[in-house]
Structures are given as C-alpha cells and as structure tokens.
C-alpha cells in the first residue's frame, strides 16, 4: 500500500492512498493497527537479546488494548516500535494503513507528531515548562498562530481538569496532576492513536482510578488506546488484553491459563 504525504493546513499528516471505498475503509478500521511478524533483536554484550520474536496482532480502531506481561516480555519494546521509535529487525507495523518503517527520513517524526499521543512512564514532563507550556510543546514546531496554540492547549488542559494549574511547573504538581498534564500533552494534536506506557505506575490507587477513568472517557469518545501495564487491577478498563511472554503473544485474557504470568 503506497503512502502519500499530503500537506493539510500547512502540516504534514501521512495518509494512506488506498481506494476510499467502504470495504477498504472497513478493513482499515478493523486493522487499524496491523502488526505482522514483528521481531526485534538487540545486540548485547554477550549473546543477542531477542526482545520480540515474531508478533502478529491486529487492533481495530476505537479499541482500548491492554498489553501485559512480566519484565522482559517485550511489551515496552512493542510499544516503542508501535510509536515509531525503534526500527524492527524483521516484520512490519502499519497504523491506519501507513507502513511506519517504510516512511522516508524524518517523515516518521512527522507521523509521531500527527498520529500519536505518547504518555510516558514517569510522565517525562519538561521541568522548565509550566503545565500549559508542556501541553503546548507538541505544537511548538507547527505553523499555527500562537493564540490558536494556546487556546487548543487550554482546552485540553481544561478537559483533564487542570486549567487552574496551568501556570505551575511540574515540580509543583502532584503525581496525579503530572500524569494529567502528560495525557493532555498527548491529546493536544488530536491524535488517532494514544500510546501509554505504565501511566499509573507511579501513582497511588486512588489517583490510579482517576487517571484510568480519564482514559476510559477518551476511549468512549472513540480514541484508540494501547496501554502497557503491570497492574492487573486496571485490566477491567480494557476491552481487550493481550499477554506477552518471551517476545511472543502468549494469550489473550480471559483465555489465558491461571499460571500465565501477567
């Protein structure tokens, strides 16, 4: 499937050039994320490390997919590759019909900016930018009037319930508030796909529920979300949960055996 880069509102949003018929659109919706034979090998000090050993997966649009597994199972590596941050050793990943690693040069960076919203483990907010400035950060390299950037960022910040904290630096925000800012930053470009890596890992149980409720709301609004987590208690938010083990798709809950480590 060819990839056509189209200038829209002076921004570059990669789009697939597949025929726009209903069946093709349906197919793209069903296979919104299409992973085929995904492999990733890291050259270690001794033997090479096989983080992923041939992963096949399709994720329909609008899903809330949970990815679970023990440390070393390859889930974070999978998320990084899904986010266009790590080239596969073999296999392919397509998002909305776009073969990520067939994109030339810095088009992958453009894809990340326009298609993805990243919520990192440990928030990864920029310490010298206020909450509002952190949320506006993905817009810094877009050609858009400053007022419009600010308005959009304020809108998103309000949506996560932190408009009154917009002038605070991350050091002055609680863990839950920082997580909300991180989510807002991921949403400011209105991405079709949200990737979250252990977003509740550093939060207490009460805040965890607040954050997961926010993700659930985003899911209800039609966003596609892929979330990596260790926490079995939030599995109820996912409409689909896969378990990775040793770089492979082990099973899909609730069909996993009771001794499957998650």
């Amino acid at each position, binding site marked *: 499937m060819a990839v056509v880069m189209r200038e829209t509102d002076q921004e570059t949003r990669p789009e697939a050039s597949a025929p726009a018929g209903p069946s093709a659109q349906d197919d793209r919706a069903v296979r919104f994320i299409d992973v085929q034979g995904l492999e990733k090998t890291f050259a270690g000090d001794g033997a090479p490390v096989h983080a992923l050993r041939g992963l096949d997966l399709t994720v329909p649009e609008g899903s809330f997919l949970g990815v679970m597994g023990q440390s070393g199972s390859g889930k*974070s590596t999978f998320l990084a590759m899904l986010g266009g*941050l790590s080239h596969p050793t073999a296999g392919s990943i397509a998002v909305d019909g776009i073969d990520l690693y067939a994109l030339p040069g810095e088009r992958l960076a453009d894809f*990340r900016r326009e298609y993805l919203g990243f919520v990192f483990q440990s928030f*990864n907010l920029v310490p*010298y930018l206020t909450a509002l400035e952190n949320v506006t950060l993905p817009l810094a390299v877009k050609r858009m009037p*400053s007022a419009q950037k600010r308005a959009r960022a304020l809108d998103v910040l309000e949506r996560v319930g932190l408009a009154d904290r917009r002038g605070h630096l991350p050091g002055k925000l609680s863990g839950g508030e920082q997580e909300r800012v991180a989510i807002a930053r991921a949403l400011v470009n209105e991405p079709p796909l949200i990737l979250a890596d252990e977003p509740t890992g550093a939060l207490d149980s009460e805040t965890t529920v607040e954050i997961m409720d926010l993700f659930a709301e985003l899911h209800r609004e039609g966003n596609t979300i892929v979330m990596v987590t260790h926490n079995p208690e939030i599995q109820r938010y996912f409409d689909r949960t896969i378990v990775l083990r040793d770089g492979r798709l082990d099973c899909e809950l609730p069909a996993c055996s009771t001794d499957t480590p998650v």
Partner: protein
Amino acid sequence: MTLLTVALNNLRRRKGRAAFLVAGLLIGVGTVVALISITQSMTGQTKANLQSFGANIVVTPRSKDVALSYGGVSAGGVSVGRQSLSQADLARIDTIPSRADIATVAPQLVGAVQVKGRRVLLLGVQPEQQFKLKRWWSVGAGHAPTSDHELIAGAAAARTLGLTMGDYVRIGGRRFTVTGVLNETGSQDDSLLIVDLGAAQQVLDEPGQVTLVEIAALYAGAPVARIAGEIGAALPQTKVTAMQEAVKSRQHAVDQFRRFTYAIVGVVIAIEALVVFLTVMGSVSERTREIGVFRAIGFRRVHITRLILIEALIASALAGVLGYAAGMAITSIVLPLVAQSAEVAWAPLLGLAAVVLAVAIGGLASLYPALHAGKMDPTEALRAL
C-alpha cells in the same frame, strides 16, 4: 509556543546552567575587550609620547666635510668647520604646509671651547625646546639655564672639570654660573657644557647662527619623509635628513606590542570556543531524556538542533554585552596602573564587535553538540521505552 519560547524558558528558569555558559563566555569576551582597549589606549599614548620624544628630522648646512655623529645619530653633512645656518632662516620652517605636524623645533649651536685648560664642546640651545625634545634629560638638583649667564654640565664634563652646582666658570671671557648637572644619559650629551643659545652665539662669535636644528615630527600626522622634503624646499641651503630608522624602530615597537596582544586575543578566543563546546556538550548529555521526549512527540532532528543553537546564541549575545561592560571596567582599573597618563578610549564599535564575536564563538562552538543532539536515538534517549 515556538522553539524560541522553549529556549528562552530553559534559559530563564534554569538560570544556573545558563549562568555557567554565559559566565564562561563573558570571561573570555571581557578579557579580549580589556586587552584590545588597553592596547588601543596605550598605543595612542605611546604614539603621543614618541611624537616628541627625540628628533626624527635633522637640518644641517650643506657640507662636503666629514660627518660628525651627535647623540648617536648621524647628522649628515655637519663638519667641525665654521659651516652654520642663519637662525632667522628657521622662521621659514613655520611656513611649510605640514607645520602642524611638527611638535618641536630645537636649534643648536656647537663649538669647542677652552675651560680650565681643557677643550670641551659647548652646546647652545633654547632650553625649553631642547628639554622638550630630549625628554630623557633631567637635572638633579638645580635647573636648566634660564638666562645667558647660566649653564648646566653633562655628567662626565662635570666630573672632568670638577664642576658642581653653584660654581662659576669662565668661557670665552664670560662668567657662567653652574645651575645644575645633567643626570647621566650614557650618550655624548654627558660631555657637553650647555648654555643658552644666545650666550653660545656670543662665546663662539657666531651671532644669529646655528649648527643644526633637530626637529620632532608627529607620527600621526604627515609622514616624516614628506615633512623633511617640505623643510628642504623651504631651506634649500640645508641638508634635511629624515631619521627613518628611528621612526621605524619606534613604530616597530608599537606594532610588535599590538601583534603580541592580538596573538593573546587569538589564544583566548580558542580557549573560549573550547569552553563553550564542552559546556554545551555537557548540557546536551544531561538533557538526553528531555531530547528523547522531544523526538518522541514529533520533533525532527533539525528542530532539536535548532533549539540547542537558539539557546546557545541567546546566551552568547548576553555574554557579549556583559563581557564588553566587564572588559571596559577592567580597562578603567588596569590602565592607570600600566600607563598613568593614558585615557580609556570608549569605542561603541568595540561593543558591537564584542557581541558579534561572542555570538560567532557561541554559534560555531555549539554547532557540533547541536547536531549531535539532533542525531540522538529517541529510544536510547528515553530509556524507559
């Protein structure tokens, strides 16, 4: 929000890091500004001092006789004969086009006399002009001749003739009072008896005549050779010698000093570039995770590079302004210690040059670290993914 905004917020809210970069560059810029402004001020003062510090043109009567060396300077066609110039003719020197470029005109009459049974050289001068010409002349206790009955003795002449201040000496039937002894100069001047020009003209029976005229021309004005030519045209009966070697050697000293300063400036600039490079490189290493976040949210490599460069250029410009102020402050403190009469030359262009220099050093030295930041692997940078 733009890259500029991100850069400004980083510098504004992480003042410690920014201050380190600014301080490093400021010290270098301040040093360069101080060196250059001190050099300019001292060069100006040196030129002013050298302008009247000794003759660089000698006017003598045309003569085919043996040259006589006086004061270590070849005086051209001066002979021990009775060749002389009319003092009245010297007024024509005031008519040359480059008269404003002449600092001192010192007519002198030289002749041999008998004192206490010995032959010594008698030098008749206009004391004010002579002492202005020969700034190294100084009288210990006592004073230069102020009348035609007073004389000063060179150090060697005083020892040979046993003269001290207050003594009387008869020369050619006239009585002179010794008003002082010239401090040792290490030249032929030590062997002279020095009297007022008019008195020497009477003693030597050369009314209205001079043997030679020493002239100090200003360096900043017309070239010495041109002034010498104009004097020669005004006084065709004379031989006018431009002391090019003396001029060149003095100018050479000034130029050497300036070249040495510029060499030091070059070294300082090189060190500053290295300091900026290491500081920015260290900052990039510290910000690995932050850069990974930028890349993950969709910044291109060129955006990262641009961001690092913008930060470095802003800090450099600030360092340029502060460095200029610091350099001029250092100059105002140091200059009086090394050159008492030199004045601080305030040069706005030097301020502009300081900022341009700082920005150029900051930009060039930050280029590699900025490019390196842009090439960082986002996964490696983030480490969490």
